[in-house]
């Protein structure tokens, strides 16, 4: 009886929900809820609607996508997967291995994605040779942002080495400015950590330590130095940092409370959304050292029933990679287009710098996936590393201990 | 006429525990059957079985000639009054009384008529619009009875209905129940642990102990000829004197010797009884009198040492130690008995019950 009643009600709900129209449909699960991000999604939604699609927004904010991933798992298990999901890095392949992703090769081939996407990025979008995700953008993670006025007032240049950074920070601290705006959330700790690894260890070391998880690299003296630098930087952070959202840290740089922030270029979206000008109000530079850490946002399409939904997926995939969207979206989001054939004239200097560096590092072999943003490793491994990094940063653990724990945690994460 | 209630080889178990064993009871219409016994004897369980509130494990049960063994309570044509009255707390007195009729779909006019009739009979008309919480104990009792009476059932069941009342009210209600029984000529099964209630109300008594029937009989039978030591001890107040004694065949009769300080008390049983050597002699206090105040065939006198004198208004009880027991005699109020002094007592041997020492069963 109860079952029956529920079944009736839910049938009604389904009927009511699907009776609208039979055009392309997409329910999009994402966690882009902050200012610049939300604007960017709105762009996609408008374009989708302009092409006759009906977009159902399913934002789940919080925890850097944790809550969204909870919802995603529940929905996939219940056989009620969303049409498209913001998903990236090896997670795409992991979901593919579970057999729940849809194949969008037909769109990709028709649109010639292979010709316009850099090989390393295309690699992330493919699962066993078929296309299973559509890239939206390329974020650079190893950025350092600064308030131009604050630097000028204190006579400081953008640092090019970590020693310079430390010297500048000491000076700022003495002047009563918070040197480093930071939010004490595990992934933000990890973001800073990976830029320090790249800066101190160099691209090769980064590859060994955070991509290949080579135990030797993880326990090396270089890694000890990295943790030493982290300890130093802990001293440059104000005492209220714990649990702060990244965009609030960005706001601190914007209003001159703090001088620097180490954060991916989505931070630029916040600067821009607040009407700040790159090069004038705020400065951007890659964090000290060589290399380029990328974080590619993408949408994966899940297996769904219904032609209208499948049509929605194809349309969505097509629009996402199309030049127009890539341009407009990334102007809002702060990142650069994933496809290489988009003219960057409208983009600011930071974006142009990013595009330039992407080309050069790609040639030099130092274009590397970000570990902190789930591009390099699977969840359990990157999580294990983050646990140690954040524990070290938030306590008085010695660097030597941290290195030991790092190796142990990685070994325990398989 | 068919028996109104017929219980045949009834058994009741809770898991492995036997609560009731081989119960066989039959009563005629108009009978007032009292189930009596100490707490835990199974009398309430038996009543619940009759009501159908408990499933029976074995045997059969019929009411008014119809087999009711597996019939649900509502179809047994019974009414029941509970110890706690079990009045429905949210309903008024009137609703409490008519609830059963309402459930059975009796039309409103009949309900009203019946209610009026019963309320008049029990003198509870002023209470009809009150709730149970606004009633005194005695009033609640009346309402509970009203709820049963209004049903006009084949059989009334009462589960210790008077035990929550104070002593005076209890006696009053007892009389009323008896009157009701006589006016309505109803068939009643009544559970109590109070043997006086049993004696005053019953036309038939069942004494229960440990789930086994000890004796069934009229109050007089139970009182005068208890079937065993348990019944003898349980029924009657003060209790029957139960005195260990030695029986010796002696010509025409039997000599009964009761040990006491300063030489055995010797009595003669002149009835022709085959008694074993060790017996328990049972004699009610009123069958021991002061010498000279009792005459008859079996009366024998003997001198006993008085240990204690208890005046009780109409009577005076005198206690003397015989056979290692405190033996009570019920004397007239003007007796000259004095504690510590000897007194001549008259034993009415024609009223004596004998019980086997080992089994406790009655011998005569």
């Amino acid at each position, binding site marked *: 009886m109860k079952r029956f009643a529920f079944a009736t009600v839910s049938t009604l709900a389904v009927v009511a929900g699907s009776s609208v129209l039979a055009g392309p449909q997409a329910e999009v699960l994402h966690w882009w809820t902050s200012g610049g991000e939300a604007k960017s999604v709105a762009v996609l939604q408008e374009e989708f609607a302009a092409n006759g699609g009906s977009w159902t927004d399913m934002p789940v904010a919080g925890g850097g996508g944790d809550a969204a991933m909870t919802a995603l*798992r529940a929905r996939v298990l219940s056989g009620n997967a969303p049409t498209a999901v913001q998903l990236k890095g090896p997670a795409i392949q992991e979901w593919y291995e579970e057999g729940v992703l849809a194949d969008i090769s037909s769109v990709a081939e028709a649109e010639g994605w292979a010709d316009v996407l850099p090989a390393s990025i295309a690699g992330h979008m493919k699962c066993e040779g078929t296309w299973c995700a559509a890239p939206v953008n390329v974020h650079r993670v190893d950025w350092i942002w600064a308030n131009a006025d604050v630097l000028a007032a204190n006579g400081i240049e953008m640092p090019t080495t970590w020693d310079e950074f430390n010297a500048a920070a000491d000076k700022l601290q003495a002047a009563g400015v918070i040197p480093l705006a930071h939010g004490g959330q595990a992934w933000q700790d990890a973001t800073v950590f990976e830029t320090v690894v790249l800066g101190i260890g160099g691209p090769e070391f980064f590859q060994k330590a955070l991509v290949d998880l080579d135990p030797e690299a993880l326990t090396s003296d270089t890694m000890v130095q990295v943790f030493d630098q982290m300890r130093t930087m802990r001293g440059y952070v104000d005492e209220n940092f714990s649990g702060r959202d990244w965009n609030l840290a960005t706001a601190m740089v914007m209003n001159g409370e703090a001088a620097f922030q180490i954060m991916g270029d989505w931070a630029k979206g916040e600067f821009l959304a607040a009407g700040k000008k790159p090069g004038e109000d705020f400065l951007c530079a890659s964090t000290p050292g060589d290399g380029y850490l990328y974080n590619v946002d993408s949408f994966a399409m899940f297996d769904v029933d219904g032609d209208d939904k499948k049509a929605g997926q194809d349309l969505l995939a097509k629009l996402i990679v199309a030049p127009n969207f890539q341009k407009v979206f990334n102007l809002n989001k702060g990142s650069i287009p994933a496809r290489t054939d988009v003219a960057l004239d409208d983009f600011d200097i930071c974006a142009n710098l990013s595009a330039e560096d992407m080309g050069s590092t790609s040639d030099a072999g130092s274009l590397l996936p970000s570990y902190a943003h789930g591009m390099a490793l699977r969840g359990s491994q990157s*999580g294990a590393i983050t646990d140690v990094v954040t*524990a070290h940063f938030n306590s008085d653990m010695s660097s030597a201990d941290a290195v030991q724990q790092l190796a142990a945690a990685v070994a325990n994460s398989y | 006429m068919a028996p109104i209630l017929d219980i045949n080889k009834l058994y009741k178990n809770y898991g492995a525990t036997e609560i009731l064993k081989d119960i066989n009871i039959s009563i005629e219409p108009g009978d007032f059957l009292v189930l009596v016994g100490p707490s835990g004897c199974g009398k309430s369980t038996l009543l619940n079985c009759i009501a159908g509130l408990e499933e029976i494990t074995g045997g059969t049960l019929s009411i008014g000639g119809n087999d009711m063994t597996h019939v649900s309570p509502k179809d047994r044509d019974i009414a029941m009054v509970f110890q706690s009255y079990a009045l429905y707390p949210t309903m008024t007195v009137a609703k409490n009384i008519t609830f059963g009729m309402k459930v059975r779909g009796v039309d409103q006019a009949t309900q009203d008529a019946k209610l009026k009739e019963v309320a008049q009979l029990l003198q509870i008309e002023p209470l009809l619009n009150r709730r149970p919480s606004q009633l005194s104990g005695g009033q609640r009792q009346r309402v509970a009875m009203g709820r049963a009476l209004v049903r006009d059932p084949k059989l009334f069941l009462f589960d210790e209905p008077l035990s929550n009342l104070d002593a005076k009210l209890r006696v009053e209600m007892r009389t009323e129940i008896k009157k009701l029984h006589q006016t309505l000529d109803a068939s009643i099964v009544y559970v109590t642990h109070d043997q006086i209630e049993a004696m005053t109300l019953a036309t038939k008594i069942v004494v229960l102990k440990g789930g086994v029937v000890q004796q069934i009989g009229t109050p007089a039978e139970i009182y005068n000829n208890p079937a065993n030591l348990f019944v003898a001890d349980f029924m009657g107040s003060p209790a029957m004197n139960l005195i260990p004694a030695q029986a010796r065949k002696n010509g025409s009769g039997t000599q009964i010797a009761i040990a006491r300080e300063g030489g055995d008390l010797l009595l003669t049983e002149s009835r022709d009884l085959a008694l074993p050597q060790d017996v328990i002699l049972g004699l009610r206090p009123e069958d021991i009198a002061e010498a000279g105040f009792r005459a008859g065939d079996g009366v024998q006198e003997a001198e006993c040492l008085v240990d204690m004198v208890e005046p009780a208004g109409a009577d005076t009880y005198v206690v003397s130690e015989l056979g290692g027991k405190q033996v009570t005699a019920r004397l007239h109020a003007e007796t000259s008995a004095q504690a510590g002094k000897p007194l001549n007592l008259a034993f009415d041997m024609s009223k004596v019950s004998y019980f086997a020492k080992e089994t406790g069963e009655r011998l005569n």
Partner: protein
Amino acid sequence: MSEWLENHLPKVVLAPSFIAVLIFVYGFIGWTAWVSLTRSKLLPKYEIKGFIQYERLFDSPRWDTAINNLYIFGALFIIIAMVLGLLLAILLDQKIRVEGAIRTIYLYPMALSMIVTGTAWKWILNPGLGIESMVQGWGFTNFEFDWLVNPDYAIYTIVMAAIWQSSGFVMALFLAGLRSVDGEIIKAAQVDGIPTWRIYTAIIIPSMAPIFLSAFIVLAHLAIKSFDLVIALTGGGPGYATDLPATYMYAMAFSRGDIGQAASSAMIMMLVVFAIVVPYLYSELRAKND
């Protein structure tokens, strides 16, 4: 047929709930136990691989922290909430004029989810925005209250907020208990000239033993299930200093894609719950069976 139905109706009525509980509680516990023996990652797999997940769990320093936090949090939370609840109940039991209003004030936190009040708490406890800056603003510049961001003390802020949320409910339980103590006993004690505090310690409180048990069980189960609280207040941070088993399990299952690990931690949590609840259930049903 209707006879059968009439006789079996109680069972028929209970059956759907019972079946639902069998499936949705015990079936799922069984499912979790099974998955804890597999190497499930992103989604559950059903191939048994032994106790590897438990070995990993016990090797994990983060789990150690989570369990230690549960001890600290659980012990402090339960004890303080009980003591405070009892104290408040006794204070309120002194024929207070505005009892209704005060009671409501003490009780209302129970009505609100930590998702709702978390932001306010975060604010109050934040050294730069809340109490610390406020007191410093009054001129006490040396005043420090930075527990929220101090990994060694952050767990105590969780305790504070948890007590804030639940002690009013405990107060209500105890108040109900105080009101149900037989008034004649208290009168007798007063006539005997026993001081009020002795009446409480020697007569009233001991007679409320069942309420202590109820309160303990409610609080213990809240402590073990605490999740919203940590997420809203610290997100488990700083670092993972305020992780609790529930948040650990959640992180493993949903942000790490390590479902096997999550299942093993869930099983350990279940064992803890079991150890607390079963004796309670036993005593509960024992007492009522008579």
